[in-house]
C-alpha cells in the first residue's frame, strides 16, 4: 500500500461530519462531542464535569447549548458534553443564543448558592475553573438568601488527599477517574440529593497509586494534596515542562517552582505516553532532594579519615590524581540522564581507558548483559502497540508497581475491549487482579500469541536463569512484539549511551573493530579499549581482589546491588558524584556535588526508546550536571572528553548517531529449574511502587498510602505452618531473616512472595538476595 492509499483508507474509515456552531462551519470526525467541536473553532463552552478522557456524565449541566438538527430544534437546551455531532446540526452556544446564555447563568447560580466563599484561603484560588467561570458568567451579587449547606472541612480521605465537601460541585470527575482510568473505585458518590457527596468507606482510605490525578482534575478546591495545601498561590509559581525521573514510563510533567524550590509537580499532557495522568510517586515524590543533607561543596577525605570541604579545583585535581594511570571502573546509577550516561561512557573509554562500566545497580547476569547489548536497542514496541494488542504478556513485570503508566494503558484497553493479559507472576498482584491477568507458571506454556501480541519484559526477568532467552524465543516464534521495561528512568538511555561494558554509544558493539574505530574518530582519540569489560558485580569483585584500584560512582545505592556491595568499595579509591550524602559518600575519597533533575537540563529515554527531554526548572542553579564534572576531571587527567555542557553533549550524541552495522547476537541460556525441597520455599519479590526507595525520601504523606508489607503464601501452606491471615511468619536464608504478617493467596504451596524494599521487608539487606530459597516458620 502506498502512503497515499493508506491515507485514503484512513479517511474512508473515519466519517467526517460538518456542523455549524455559532454561525461557523467546522468539520470533525463522527462521534465528536459538540463541546469539542466547538473547541476546534475556539469557542469555549463552560463546563465542569466534562473531561476529554472520561466517559461523558452530563451531570453539571453547565455546558447547555441550543441545538437543531435538520431544522428541528430540541425543545430544551442540551448538554453539549454528551451529544455527538450530526450532519445538518446547528448549534448555538451562549455566544449566540440567549436561551443557552440564560441556562448557563442559571446553572452557575445554582452551583454557587452552596459554594463557600473561601477562595482567599483555597489552594485552587487563581487557577479555579469555578472561580474563572463565575467571574465570566456569574452574577455580580447573589440572589440566594437562604442557608448554605455545610460539612466538616476538610476530611482526609487518605494521608495525601484532603476532601472539602463544601467546595465540591459533584462533577464526579474524581470518582469517574478512579473507576474508569485507575480501576480503584475507592472514592464514590455517597448519599443522595443535596446531601450527595464524594466519600470513601470509612475503613478503607483512598489509597490508589493514581489518587493525585483527582486533585489535578478537580475543577474546584474540593480535593487538595496534603503536601501542597496552603503552600503557594498559583500566580507565584513558575511552571516548567519536565520529564519524570522516577520510572521508564516516560511521563511528561510540569514542575512548579517558587524561589528555587519545587512546590508541586503535575502530570503534563502527552497523548502518546501518559495522556494527562501520572502516578502519585511521580507527582509527590520530589522531596528526596531536600530531605537529606545536600552535598554543598566538593569534599576530600583527609589524613584524619574525615571528609573536608574543598574548592572545585582542589577536588577535581584530587580525583584526577587518584584515577590517572590507575585501573579504574565506573558505576552509573540507573537514574542518569542520557547525557550524563554518555559522559560516564566516554570518560571510562577515553580517560580511564577501560570498558569496565555498568549502569546496573541491581542484580544482574551475563544472560542479561547479552540481552541488553544485543536485543534491547532494536526493540521498537510502543504504547500504541499496547492500544492495538490482541494480548499482552507480562514477564517479570508488574506494570502497576514498576511502570504505572504502562498499567493505565493496558487497563484502558481492558475496559474498552477486554484485552487479554497473561502474567508469569507466581501470585496475582492487585494490578494483575485489576487486569484480570491469567497467571502462568512457565513461559514455555504460553501459546496463541500473534504478531499483534505484545510481550512486556521487566528487568526482573533477568533474575531467572534462561527466562530472557525464553521470552525472546516466544517473540521470535509467535512474531509478537517485544518490549523491555526497566524500572528506572535512565536504564534504556544508559544502554544507548554505552554505559555498559559491551556497547559504545549508539549501540556500537565494543567487540567490533569498525565500531571502535568509528567512535575513536568521532572522539578524536587514537583508539578505544578492546578488552571485554566488567559488569557491576565483576567491578565490585575486582575492587576487593585488587584487580581494580579505583572506581567512579554516581547515583548508586549499594544496597540495591547486594548486601556486600558497600564493603567491597572500602579499600579502593572512590570518586563519588552525588546529590546528597549517602552510604557511598561516607566511604568515598572525593565527593563531587552534582545537580538534581530540576537543576539541570537533559533527557531520559522511556521504555519505548523515545527521548523525554526536560529543561532546567531552576534557571539560576549553580549545581552542575555529572557530565560537566566528568569533563573537568578528564581535562585535569590530560585525557579530555570535551563535554563542557549538557547541550554540547546532546549535540555530540546526535552527531554520532546510531550503529548501522549488525547487532551482537543474543547468547541464549537454557532454563534451569529450581526445585524447592520439602523444607524450603521459593521466595519471589518485587518492589512496590511506594516503598523505601530513596527517591521517595521525605514525603510522609505519600508514604502513608503505601501498601503494607505482607508475605503471601497459599492456604494449604498457611495451614501447614499453623498460621492464620495476618499472623507473623519468619522467613530466613543463610544470611538473615525477616518477619511479616501472612496474606493467604492463591498460589503454589512452595512459593512465597514478599515485597522487595518495603518497611519490614528489605530482602537484599534482610535475606541477601531478591529471589531464592528460604525457610519459613511461624513466628
Amino acid at each position, binding site marked *: 500500500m502506498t502512503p497515499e492509499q493508506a491515507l485514503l483508507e484512513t479517511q474512508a474509515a473515519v466519517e467526517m461530519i460538518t456542523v455549524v456552531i455559532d454561525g461557523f462551519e467546522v468539520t470533525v470526525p463522527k462521534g465528536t462531542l459538540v463541546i469539542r467541536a466547538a473547541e476546534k473553532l475556539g469557542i469555549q463552552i463552560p463546563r465542569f464535569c466534562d473531561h476529554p478522557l472520561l466517559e*461523558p*456524565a*452530563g*451531570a*453539571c*449541566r*453547565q455546558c*447547555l447549548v441550543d441545538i437543531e438538527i435538520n431544522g428541528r430544534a430540541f*425543545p*430544551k*437546551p442540551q448538554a453539549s458534553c*454528551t451529544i455527538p455531532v450530526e450532519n445538518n446540526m446547528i448549534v448555538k452556544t451562549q455566544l449566540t443564543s440567549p436561551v443557552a446564555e*440564560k*441556562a448557563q447563568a*442559571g*446553572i452557575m*447560580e*445554582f*452551583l454557587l*448558592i*452552596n459554594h463557600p466563599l473561601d477562595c482567599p484561603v483555597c489552594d485552587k484560588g487563581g487557577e479555579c475553573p469555578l472561580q474563572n467561570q463565575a467571574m465570566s458568567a456569574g452574577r455580580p451579587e447573589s*440572589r*440566594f438568601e*437562604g*442557608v448554605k*449547606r455545610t460539612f466538616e472541612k476538610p476530611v482526609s480521605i487518605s494521608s495525601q488527599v484532603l476532601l472539602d465537601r463544601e467546595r465540591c*460541585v*459533584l462533577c464526579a470527575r474524581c470518582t469517574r477517574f478512579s473507576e474508569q482510568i485507575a480501576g480503584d473505585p475507592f472514592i464514590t*458518590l455517597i*448519599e*443522595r*440529593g*443535596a*446531601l*450527595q457527596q464524594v466519600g470513601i468507606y470509612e475503613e478503607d482510605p483512598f489509597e490508589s497509586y493514581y489518587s493525585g490525578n483527582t486533585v489535578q482534575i478537580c475543577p474546584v478546591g474540593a480535593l487538595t494534596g496534603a503536601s501542597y495545601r496552603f503552600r503557594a498561590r498559583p500566580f507565584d509559581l513558575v511552571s516548567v515542562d519536565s520529564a519524570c525521573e522516577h520510572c521508564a514510563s516516560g511521563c511528561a510533567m510540569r514542575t512548579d517552582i517558587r524561589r528555587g524550590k519545587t512546590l508541586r509537580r503535575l502530570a503534563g499532557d502527552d497523548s502518546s505516553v501518559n495522556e494527562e495522568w501520572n502516578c502519585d510517586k511521580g507527582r509527590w515524590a520530589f522531596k528526596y532532594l531536600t530531605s537529606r543533607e545536600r552535598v554543598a561543596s566538593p569534599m576530600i577525605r583527609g589524613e584524619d579519615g574525615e571528609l573536608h570541604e574543598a574548592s572545585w579545583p582542589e577536588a577535581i585535581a584530587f580525583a584526577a590524581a587518584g584515577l590517572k594511570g590507575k585501573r579504574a571502573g565506573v558505576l552509573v546509577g540507573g537514574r542518569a540522564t542520557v547525557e550524563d550516561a554518555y559522559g560516564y561512557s566516554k570518560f571510562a573509554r577515553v580517560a580511564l581507558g577501560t570498558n569496565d562500566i555498568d549502569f546496573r545497580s541491581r542484580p544482574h547476569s551475563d544472560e542479561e548483559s547479552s540481552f541488553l547489548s544485543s536485543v534491547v536497542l532494536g526493540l521498537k514496541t510502543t504504547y500504541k502497540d499496547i492500544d492495538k494488542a490482541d494480548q499482552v504478556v507480562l514477564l517479570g513485570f508488574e506494570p502497576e508497581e514498576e511502570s504505572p503508566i504502562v498499567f493505565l494503558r493496558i487497563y484502558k484497553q481492558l475496559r474498552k475491549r477486554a484485552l487479554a493479559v497473561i502474567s508469569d507472576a507466581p501470585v496475582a498482584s492487585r494490578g494483575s487482579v485489576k487486569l484480570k491477568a491469567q497467571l502462568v507458571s512457565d513461559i514455555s506454556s504460553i501459546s496463541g500469541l500473534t504478531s499483534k501480541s505484545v510481550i512486556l519484559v521487566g528487568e526482573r526477568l533477568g533474575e531467572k536463569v534462561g527466562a530472557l532467552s525464553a521470552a525472546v524465543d516466544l517473540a521470535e516464534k509467535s512474531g509478537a512484539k517485544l518490549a523491555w521495561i526497566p524500572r528506572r528512568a535512565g536504564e534504556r538511555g544508559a544502554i544507548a549511551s554505552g554505559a555498559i561494558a559491551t556497547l559504545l554509544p549508539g549501540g556500537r558493539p565494543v567487540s567490533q573493530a569498525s565500531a571502535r574505530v568509528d567512535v575513536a574518530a568521532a572522539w578524536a582519540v587514537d583508539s578505544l579499549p578492546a578488552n571485554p569489560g566488567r559488569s557491576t558485580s565483576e567491578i565490585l569483585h575486582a575492587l576487593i581482589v585488587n584487580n581494580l584500584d579505583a572506581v567512579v560512582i554516581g547515583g548508586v545505592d549499594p544496597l540495591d546491588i547486594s548486601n556486600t556491595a558497600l564493603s567491597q568499595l572500602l579499600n579502593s579509591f572512590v570518586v563519588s558524584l552525588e546529590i546528597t550524602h549517602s552510604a557511598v559518600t561516607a566511604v568515598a575519597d572525593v565527593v563531587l556535588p552534582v545537580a538534581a533533575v530540576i537543576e539541570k537540563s537533559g533527557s531520559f529515554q522511556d521504555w519505548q526508546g523515545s527521548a523525554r527531554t526536560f529543561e532546567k526548572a531552576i534557571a539560576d542553579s549553580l549545581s552542575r550536571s555529572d557530565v560537566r564534572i566528568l569533563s573537568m576531571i578528564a581535562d585535569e587527567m590530560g585525557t579530555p572528553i570535551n563535554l563542557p555542557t549538557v547541550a554540547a553533549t546532546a549535540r555530540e550524541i546526535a552527531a554520532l548517531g546510531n550503529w548501522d552495522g549488525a547487532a551482537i547476537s543474543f547468547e541464549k541460556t537454557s532454563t534451569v529449574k529450581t526445585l524447592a525441597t520439602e523444607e524450603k520455599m521459593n521466595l519471589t519479590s518485587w518492589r512496590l511502587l511506594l516503598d523505601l526507595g530513596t527517591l521517595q525520601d521525605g514525603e510522609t504523606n505519600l508514604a502513608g498510602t503505601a501498601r503494607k508489607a505482607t508475605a503471601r503464601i497459599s492456604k494449604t501452606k498457611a495451614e501447614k505452618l499453623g498460621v492464620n491471615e495476618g499472623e507473623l511468619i519468619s522467613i530466613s536464608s543463610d544470611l538473615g531473616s525477616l518477619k511479616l504478617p501472612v496474606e493467604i493467596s492463591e498460589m503454589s504451596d512452595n512459593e512465597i512472595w514478599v515485597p522487595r524494599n518495603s518497611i519490614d521487608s528489605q530482602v537484599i539487606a534482610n535475606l541477601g538476595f531478591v529471589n531464592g530459597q528460604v525457610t519459613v516458620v511461624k513466628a
Partner: protein
Amino acid sequence: MSKLTPVLSANWDDKDSFTIEGYKRAGGYQAVTKALAMEPDAVITMIKDSGLRGRGGAGFPTGSKWGFIPQGDNKEHYLVVNADESEPGTCKDTPLLLANPHVLIEGIIIGSYAIRANHAFIYLRGEIVHVYRRVQQAIEDAYKAGLLGKNIGGKGFDLELTLHAGAGAYICGEETALLDSLEGFRGQPRLRPPFPAIAGLYAKPTVVNNVESIASVPAIIKNGVEWFQTMGTEKSKGFTLYSLSGHVNNPGQFEAPLGITLREILELAGGVRTGHKLKFWTPGGSSTPMFTDEHLDIPLDYEGVSAAGSMLGTKALQIFDETTCVVRATLRWCEFYKHESCGKCTPCREGTWWLVQMLQDLEDGKGTEADLTKLLDLCDNIAGRSFCALADGAVAPIISSLKYFRDEYLEHQRNGGCPFDPVASTLFKTVGA
C-alpha cells in the same frame, strides 16, 4: 350503568383473588395459552393495534416499545416491570399487586414471549412488604404450575422471573435509574442514547413497562383488540385505574375507560368532603400541574389533560378542598422532590434545595411579591435544564399553583404567616388532633 369498567379489578373482591387458584377461577392464565400459540411478532402487532399506552405516566405506546427490541441479534433480551410506585398521590399498582399479582405474571409471560426475553424482573418498591410477599408467592406458585421456568406450556419457551425489592428511592421509577439500581448501582438516570431498547439491563435490549400496562395485556390478548377499543377515546384506548384520594367522601380505585371526567368520578365517590368545596387537584400525581374546579369536565385521557396544560400521568386524582393551603401543599411536594433528587445534576440538586427554602419563607409569611418573580425565574432555570424529568415535576406544582393561586401566596405575607388552620384540613378535627 355507571361508566366504570372493572377488568383488572374485576375479581378483587374474591377472598382469594391473589392466589393462583383464585386467578384461574376468574379466567386467569387463559391469555397466556392463546399468546403462546401465536407468533411472538403477532403478539406485538396485537398490542400495537390495541392502542395500549403506558400507564406509568408517559403514555408511550406499549406495542411500539416492544417493537423496538432488535430481533435476531443473538443477545439476551430482558423485560423489566416498573413496580416502583412512588409518585405522590399514586396508589394503583400497589393495590393491584396486593389483590392480584398473577395478572402481572401472566402479562410478563406474554410480554417476554413477544420480545423474546428469557429473563424478566419485577422492580418492586421496597416499602410495601406485604405486596412483596404476595408477588413472591405468586411467582413461586407460577413456577410450580409450569407457567415459569423451562418449556412453558410445552411450547419450548423458557422464562425466569426475579422479584427485586427497591429500598426507598423515588428516582428509581425513572426507567434508566431503575436499570442502574437493578444492576446494583446508585439509582441515577443514565445518558440516553443508548435507549434501553438497544442497551438496557446489562447493556442488553430491554423493555421497561409499568405494572398496569403489563397487567392490561392478558385481557387484550384474551378479549381482542376490538373489545379493548370499545373503551376509551380516539387516541387513548381502553380501561385504566383512576385513584381518587384526599378530601372526598369516598376515596378509592375506579377502573374506567380513558376519557372519564373528574366530575363523573366524584359523583360516583359521593363528592367532595361534605360541607366543603373543591379547591385544587392533580390529574396524575404531584408532578402533573394542578387543576382547579374549572377543570372538572376535562376528559381524563392523554390528549385531554395535556390540552388543558397538565399531564394524565398516573391518574392519581388528589383532591384538596378549600381548607387546604396551596402554599403548604406546594412546599411539601417540593420537599419531597428535594428529598428524592438523586443529586446527579446541578439544577435539580441545588434548585430544589433553594426552592424549599423560598417556599418555606413564603409559607411563613416572609416572602414578598418580588420573591414570587424570583421563584418563577428559578423554576425557569430548572425546568428543562436537568438530566431527567424529576426536576420538571418539582417545579410543576409551583408554577401551576402560582398560576391559579398567586394571591394566596401574597396573602401569607399580608397575614404575617399562613392564613389557614391546619386542623381544618384534617379528617379528625373532632376526634382529637
